[in-house]
């Protein structure tokens, strides 16, 4: 019996670093297999989608569009900035990023906290009760976790360390032909 690849939660949300890691390793097809075999859909915040598909980019871009067409990646609706829990979560994330990166808080933009905003929006709108966040941005995750637990969403998020997850997927599917 092998360890569980995906945590048992209702929703799975991914940060840019996860998709870029698979793309760099040329193993997006393995991610697709893992995701579809487990009946999982990876949720992508709008802003992260834009980051992964920049205009006039000189390199190749990750095959996000194909993943969306195939149905295993889904773009989320816009973050609900007017919701106070959403904005409190994003403010907290900005604090964490500011402290961790040793940058003044005013230089950390709202957009930097978009994953947190998207998670808070899903919870606040009652679209899900538990979410796994796939990222290697540990300070941002900690900010999300803390803000949400202060606003009635205790134990509703869990971290999946992006690069460990990539390793697990590759180890499991790489040699299955």
């Amino acid at each position, binding site marked *: 019996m092998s360890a569980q690849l995906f945590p048992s939660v209702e929703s799975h949300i991914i940060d840019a670093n996860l998709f870029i890691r698979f793309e*760099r390793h040329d193993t997006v097809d393995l991610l697709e297999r893992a995701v579809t075999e487990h009946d999982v859909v990876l949720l992508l915040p709008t802003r992260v989608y834009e*980051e992964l598909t920049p205009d006039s980019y000189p*390199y190749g871009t990750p095959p996000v569009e194909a993943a969306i067409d195939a149905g295993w990646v889904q773009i989320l609706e816009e973050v609900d900035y007017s919701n106070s829990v959403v904005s409190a979560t994003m403010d907290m994330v900005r*604090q964490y990023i500011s402290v961790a990166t*040793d*940058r003044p808080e005013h230089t950390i933009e709202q957009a930097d906290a978009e994953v947190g905003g998207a998670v808070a929006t899903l919870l606040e709108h009652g679209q899900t009760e538990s979410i796994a966040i796939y990222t290697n941005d540990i*300070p941002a995750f*900690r900010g999300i976790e803390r803000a949400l637990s202060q606003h009635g969403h205790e134990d509703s998020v869990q971290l999946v360390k992006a690069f460990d997850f990539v390793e697990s997927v590759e180890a499991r599917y790489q040699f299955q032909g």
Partner: protein
Amino acid sequence: MLAVSDVIQNNRLARLYARAFELDSPTVEELAVGLESSTTTVYEDVKHLVDIGLLERVTETQPHRYRASRVDLTIQADGETFRITPILLVALAERQTNENINLYLDRHGVSGLATAIEYARAYTQSKMNARIMAREQEIPVLEAETILQELQEIILDAEPDISTSLDIDELDAAVDDRLDE
């Protein structure tokens, strides 16, 4: 006479340095294995790298062994100032086989790559993310994340002792201090 700054323009020398770095203290023969150059060329290149301080001879008797110097120099070349470190030389040596590093060099030059290494070191320690680097360096987030990940792998390989675990309690306390202000 060769200077340290020439090594960043000469991929053969960068690859020789990177191989010495990887092998710890190889002999010239050991260095030559896997390199395209003839042993004679490798001998000459080793002598050059010793002359400019990038390799150190660590033996008194034949066959001599050479160690890659843990260089940390700030130099000026082509009107730009940047820091030469082992990571930079190893990254330059990977240019031929690593498409992302090669493209980054084409777009941002050696000094751009040297800057990216500073970001990548912080990123490896969970003290940086691609969005901030992208904004400060005026590049797309995708490009920043890609080069950070490439360089992170080199850094983890070359500096296995680098601290990668963030102290969450310390971070919480620092944020609390900030919020109390």
